């Protein structure tokens, strides 16, 4: 950080722009995938029923890398929907990683350590607790 005493300690304007772009890109990408996946799903299952859909989650077979990749290659709407939610969840993680990059670049060790800790907690929490309860 380069702030003088009494001056606000702000990140460079570029960091705000980059973080905003990360959030916007993630949201637009995820929304596009959601709309495409939902439209295809409804067209393929026009007489689906909600209780049945709730009982057996249609993305259950796509929650592993191999299944997801196979589904994407085959353009399965369930795989596209899984990817949409994954992109949405990954967007804030990418935002934290962007913050980490700027704190390291500004030699702001304390905030760099904090953002790295948050990132590790997020990744470890999701990939340990999620499969544990599956």
């Amino acid at each position, binding site marked *: 950080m380069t702030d003088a005493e009494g001056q606000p300690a702000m990140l460079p304007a570029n960091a705000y722009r980059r973080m*905003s772009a990360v*959030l916007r890109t993630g949201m637009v990408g995820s929304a596009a995938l959601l709309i495409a*996946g939902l439209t295809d799903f409804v067209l393929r299952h026009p007489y689906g029923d909600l209780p049945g859909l709730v009982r057996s989650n249609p993305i259950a077979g796509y929650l592993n890398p191999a299944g997801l990749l196979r589904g994407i290659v085959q353009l399965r709407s369930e795989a596209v929907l899984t990817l949409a939610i994954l992109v949405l969840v990954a967007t804030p993680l990418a935002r934290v990683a962007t913050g980490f990059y700027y704190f390291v670049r500004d030699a702001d060790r304390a905030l760099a350590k904090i953002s790295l800790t948050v990132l590790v*907690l997020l990744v470890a929490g*999701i990939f340990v607790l999620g499969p544990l309860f599956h």
Partner: protein
Amino acid sequence: MAFIILLLLILLVGVAAGLLGSLSGLGGGVVIVPLLVVAFQIPLVDAIGASAVSVLATSTATGAAYVRDRLTDIRIGMFLEIATVPGALFGVTATLLLAKSGLGSALLVALGAVLLFTVPSSLSRAAKPAGERRVDRRSRALKLKGSYYDPHLGREVSYEAERTTPALATMFAAGTVSGMFGIGGGVLKVLALERFLGLHAKVATATSNFMIGVTVAASSGVLLLAGDVNPVIAGPVALGTAVGAMVGSRLLPGMSSARVASIFLVLVAVLGVELVLRGLGIG
């Protein structure tokens, strides 16, 4: 009812929740779970998964604008995420343990209680009384201060974070509530940012929104990999809520937000009572 009509109704519920949540400043998350459970008979954990994804979508959509306009205090937000993320992981673990142990009714009562707590907390949200400023050592060491341009005042407004320890404790609680029920927990976050850290309302709202994204990403990610996010339900809710929130933020300047907030609070209170009664087996 035809499948597509049901999905369109879920989409409309999302739009209404996002719109009212945005206009009232409470966020739409607080009413999505009860509406999905009560009106669509969707199981609680699936409703929580759908709500968490919708809150994530809304926070991402509106957060991009707040960050671009530099209303968000990124340093303070990232510092407090060190408490909200463990809180969210703790909360979602508690929910999954309770639900898989057949204690879903206890969760309904707890969510009802959270909704009923939201009402007085929102009504009491007021400017922090002027008093002695207590900027602590941690705040100084981490340089938790900043400034923003206020167009109404026509000048730059500076601030410096004050009592960080109670703020961190409140953020852990906010993260826990958020993780347990798939809501943003913005009411608690904004209260802590304004009352403990002494931030101005605009910065507090933008920074709370910034933190909500990461907090809910933790619980959404766990619920997704646990198989408790059903995108066919979560998708329409998320799209609807994000659209409703964006429309609401554009309408806000020309509307009487106090009146909208009153209507929304009545809805929150009614849903809170309904959930408590259902959880107790009375409803």
